[in-house]
């Protein structure tokens, strides 16, 4: 019961903070590029605007147009609920098992990909194809890096991994742990469509991945899609941050602990977001067919992490 409560807190906090995270990232980037920027609250205004707008449905598109954004949103919410962001407690019947989390993420990925195909436009298909290819190639790195992290703990449950790392500082800085986290960072960038894999702010059709899949959506459909994608960023970035800095998470319902955990999470997340945004300024999007090289590189890191865990651990 307590665990459920904590999870609810986590979902609410994470959902509430998500547009802010995006706002911070965009603002940081704008400032570093010498622009004024729309302000950190712009994403909230965007969502409100989209919800008020009339959604369109092109003749010939199917129910996927309506269902996919919702599926993405719910799946992202589930990931937010499962990943240890604010709390390491989890609902006993639904442990935040890594493989379950990944497969729920994949549901969202699939929903997006089908949405891209639904209208039968050239760009939607293109985006869908690229999106799925990247998802497929990311998969090995994801599983491998968390495999590496799970070895010292003997469990693929994320919260156990975070707790164990928090309990023993040396674990965080072992070669295996470092390699795994670095690999995971690449994965997160690819999964959430950040540079250098995808450019979230591009408007050049041929370079788009994420954007081209949602071309046909408007109004609230687009709002669900945007929020859903942002929530994925929150969850994954939050996970990486908590793996790298596994402290401050609440494991009980003590109000103080929860408060500390919430604040710690917001700070860690926003800082991390700002760092990512800052790094993106200095990066260019790589060509699509260079992406596999990047992912292969991160896979090797993760693989080394696993063997290092076995052979050196």
């Amino acid at each position, binding site marked *: 019961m307590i665990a459920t409560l904590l999870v609810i807190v986590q979902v609410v906090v994470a959902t509430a903070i998500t547009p802010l995270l995006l706002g911070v990232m965009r603002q940081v980037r704008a400032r570093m590029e010498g622009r004024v920027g729309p302000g950190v609250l712009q994403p909230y205004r965007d969502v409100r605007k989209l*919800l008020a707008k009339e959604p369109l449905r092109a003749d010939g598109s199917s129910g996927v147009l*309506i269902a996919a954004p*919702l599926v993405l949103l719910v799946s992202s919410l589930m990931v937010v609920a499962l990943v240890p962001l604010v709390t390491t407690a989890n609902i006993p019947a639904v442990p935040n098992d890594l493989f379950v989390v990944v497969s729920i993420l994949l549901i969202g990925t699939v929903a997006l990909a*089908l949405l891209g195909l639904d209208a039968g436009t*050239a760009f939607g298909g293109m985006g869908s194809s690229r999106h799925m290819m990247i*998802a497929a*190639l990311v998969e090995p790195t994801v599983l491998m890096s968390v*495999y590496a992290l799970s070895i010292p703990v003997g469990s693929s449950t994320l919260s156990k991994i975070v707790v164990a790392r928090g309990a023993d500082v040396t674990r965080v800085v072992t070669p295996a742990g470092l390699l795994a986290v670095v690999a995971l960072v690449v994965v997160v960038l690819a999964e959430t469509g950040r540079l250098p894999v995808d450019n979230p702010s591009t408007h050049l059709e041929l370079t788009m991945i994420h954007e081209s899949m949602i071309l046909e959506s408007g109004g609230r459909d687009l709002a669900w899609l945007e929020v859903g994608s942002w929530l994925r960023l929150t969850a994954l970035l939050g996970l990486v941050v908590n793996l790298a800095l596994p402290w401050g998470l609440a494991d009980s319902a003590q109000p103080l602990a929860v408060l500390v955990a919430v604040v710690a999470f917001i700070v860690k997340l926003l800082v991390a977001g700002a760092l990512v945004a800052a790094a993106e300024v200095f990066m260019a999007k790589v060509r*699509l067919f260079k992406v596999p090289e990047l992912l292969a590189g991160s896979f090797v890191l993760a693989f080394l992490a696993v063997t290092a865990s076995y052979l050196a651990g």
Partner: protein
Amino acid sequence: MTAVGGLVTVMTLTGLAVVLAFVVPQRYRSLASGGASMGIGIAGIFTGIAAMTSVPKAVLVIPIAIPGGLGLDPLLLSPTPLGGVFCVVVGAVGAVAALYGIGYAHGPAASRSGWSAFAVFLLGMLIVAAAGDVVSFLLGWETMAIASTVLLLADHAVRPAVRPAAVWYAVMTHLSFLSLATGFALVASTAHSTTFTQIAAAHITGPTGIAAFLLLLVGFATKAGLVPLHVWLPRAHPEAPSHVSALMSAAMVKLGVYGIILLTGTWLPDVSRPFAILVLALGVLSGAYGILQASITSDLKRLLAYSTTENVGLAVTAVGVGMLLSNAGQDAVAAIALVAALLLVVSHAAFKTVLFLGAGTILHATGERDLDRLGGLVRSHPVTAWTFGIAAMGAAALPVTSGFGAEWTLLQALVHGDGRANITLALALPVTLGLMALTIGLGLLTFVKAFGTAFLARPRSAAAATPAPEFTSMPGSAAMGVAQAIGALAVIGLGLAVGPVATGLSSVLGYTGIVTSELGGLRLVTIGVLDPYALGLLALGLALPVALLVLVVRRRVPRRVTDLAWGCGGARTSPRMEYTATSYAEPLVRVFGEALRPTRSLEVSHLAEDHVLENRVAFAQQVTDIVEDRWYAPAVGWLRFAGDQARRVQNGSIHRYLGFSFAALVVVLIVVTLP
């Protein structure tokens, strides 16, 4: 019903189905014979359940004309609990496929021979699963081989591609049979008995055992469609009628896995121990190669065939992991891997049945199985779209379908294997996990592509634009829909009931480390829990506020239907502008160019009056099966060469013939005089 009673029922019903196929007039033949075939399947399910649960071992003895007691015993049908599992799989797939066939079968597939072969095919598979000795195993094996070949031939008069497919299929099947027969002969003559219990009791080791192991492995791997022995799958499945493809893919290839499990677990456990890595490699490579080929093909049924190679590969991977872990003494985790193997088998049977049946409906409606010429069928074929979609989720192992639970179990076994003290495990487990993850990822892409291009978007050809309706007034038309729906329910049901199913399967194998959790989920003791119901509840809980929000917003801002998609200004032009299945896979072909070796050709023809201006550019890209090109094509060439050379032996010259006899005489005279 006891297992023996079930088997007798199966045989009786087979006879009935054959008789009905011959006596009932064409119009009601499918109904009569298909109904009887359904009965066979259902009897098979009961047989299997009886075999899984009954304690006293059921035995049915059939004498044959070769005297027993000489190392060749009479036929013995005594399904073990493990065989019972496969009886259930075969029976269930058979019943659903038969139901579908009642509506689907037409032309040669609904002929006398078609339905007779269908029933006999089912009988053969059930005999294999129930076999208690070598000869009856081989008998069932060959019965299903011949019956499936006949079924495969159904459309031979319409499509010339059927013949090469049938030849490949028959030859590979015979390769499988002969290596099994030789392997079994070795085993049987060492154990001085052909019964499996005696063979298991003989604890065969040594070079004989190794030779037998390798031969049997080749035999089973061929039937299971493992790389590099998979070549018959992508040829045979597309050419067979769809309900037969379903039966072949979902049930028949599973018997290869059955054989591998028996081989490594029961018959030759001591010999197979050192070959764990080989089994694992077979599985992992089949998985990755199969799904890679599936992801780039645009022929729907070929795609499903390669996906079969992938899924069987995963099941064999699980067996290999189990062997490795058991070698390392980690029996608890090894047991989980083996249960995962069975789960994979069961779940693949469920979703692949539906997928092939769905492909059949598409083929029936449009006459096309080329994804590049399909599209938009979700509107005309909602039932097929839903069932195919659910099954595709199962194939992509998304929660909470059957495939998800199975792959989750295998992944848990992988990450909980302890590689710290064992260099083999330390290397094998991560490599397996990596390749398996790639397999899962590509599987996702494959089925998004299959579903998305077939059912979503706009029709890419005239045939797809005007498909035959899903339901007609024809008797049996509903049967197709019902069969697909039953299959789809099974995919979901197996996903939701993963706990009881896995517990049942582990009890078949005699393991205790797997229990059903409080809410009916799957609990791997000390490792973790997977609870589909709780997961569903969580999803519902989170969906509730979203749903409320949607309701609120929807009332305020209604949706508007436009007749034009945006598409970056590319208004509704020709459907040729759409992304096709081929273009969908194009990035993959590039990324995996080294492994796939596509052949490309670019032809540019210039205008007659100006050689700078281009008139027409033709680009063609073809991806063939590299294993086939590199291994089989030379073998075929070599055989042809040998055949040509051998014709010199029979060149018509009587002098040469006399010379042979003379040489034989001289040799015999020399041999005789040697002491």
